């Protein structure tokens, strides 16, 4: 009898462990918490907006504010926003292996690299990825690293590139030369861009 109870408890425990993975939305990256880095970083930002919290945030957007009103339009179709940003006082205070671990997830089928820009002179790296499913962008990932900073952004959901495009001028989102969802298929996704001429960055 005791063995049966123990078995049931073990099964429930396994189910509990398995449920978060099973509940993970397609396109959601497994971002490490970088707990050790937060202590070393001069500034750290961690945003974890899962569907429930994101829905709550969307409800509290102020439609009278143009910036928030534009976000409100695309907010309902999003399933989660996850951001990690760490800024350090000295160069390369973070292990690149952590970022490479996230980057490896983007090698999974469906993900396409939209932009890849590397400046060897400045040691900066910006990569933008899209998860395309049936011609629809399901997830956006940005990995940007600099000697003293790295940023990982993961926006999950039916990303309407047209609406993202409409944010231009609101947040300074540039025109990404994305004409429509149809063009943003894996085949049509542009190859990683060659390393551009390094541009001086204002710090």
């Amino acid at each position, binding site marked *: 009898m005791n063995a049966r109870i123990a078995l049931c408890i073990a099964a429930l425990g396994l189910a509990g462990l398995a449920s978060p993975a099973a509940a993970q939305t397609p396109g959601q990256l497994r971002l490490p918490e970088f707990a050790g880095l937060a202590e070393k970083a001069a500034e750290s930002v961690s945003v974890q907006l899962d569907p429930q919290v994101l829905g709550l945030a969307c409800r509290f957007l102020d439609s009278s504010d143009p*910036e928030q009103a534009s976000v409100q339009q695309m907010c309902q179709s999003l399933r989660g926003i996850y951001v990690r940003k760490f800024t350090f006082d000295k160069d390369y205070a973070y292990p690149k292996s952590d970022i490479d671990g996230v980057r490896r997830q983007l090698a999974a089928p469906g993900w396409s690299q939209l932009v890849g820009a590397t400046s060897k002179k400045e040691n900066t790296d910006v990569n933008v990825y899209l998860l395309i499913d049936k011609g629809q962008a399901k997830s956006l990932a940005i990995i940007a690293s600099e000697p003293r900073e790295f940023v990982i952004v993961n926006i999950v959901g039916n990303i309407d590139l047209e609406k993202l495009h409409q*944010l231009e001028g609101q947040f300074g989102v540039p025109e990404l030369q994305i004409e429509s969802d149809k063009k943003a298929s894996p085949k049509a996704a542009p190859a990683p861009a060659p390393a551009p001429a390094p*541009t001086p960055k*204002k710090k």
Partner: protein
Amino acid sequence: MSEVEDRLRRALRPIDPPPGFAERVMRALPDQRPTATVTPIDIVRTSPRASFWRRVSAPAALAASLVAAVLLGQHVAIQQEERAGLAARQELMQALRLTSQKLDDAYQAVQGTPAPAQEENPS
């Protein structure tokens, strides 16, 4: 049976009290007996209205307390939700600003042109 009865009779036979017993008992009694007060029933009986309020006051107070607790709980929950919502909104806007900034960086890097903010000193 008759022997038992005889023994009982002998054991319970009436005996005279010792001399002076009655005086000692009387001395032990209090000097004045408390007088019983008689209150007319009409005064004791409460009116039907007062009785009703006495009966319902406790449940009413309990019910009022429950309603107040529920309302207070709802108010606190609404306030908590509002605080959480505003915090989530702030995080959302922060995340989108950061996304925008990084997309801008990517765009500028691909275009190979400096960002507008970097053109403050064209010289």
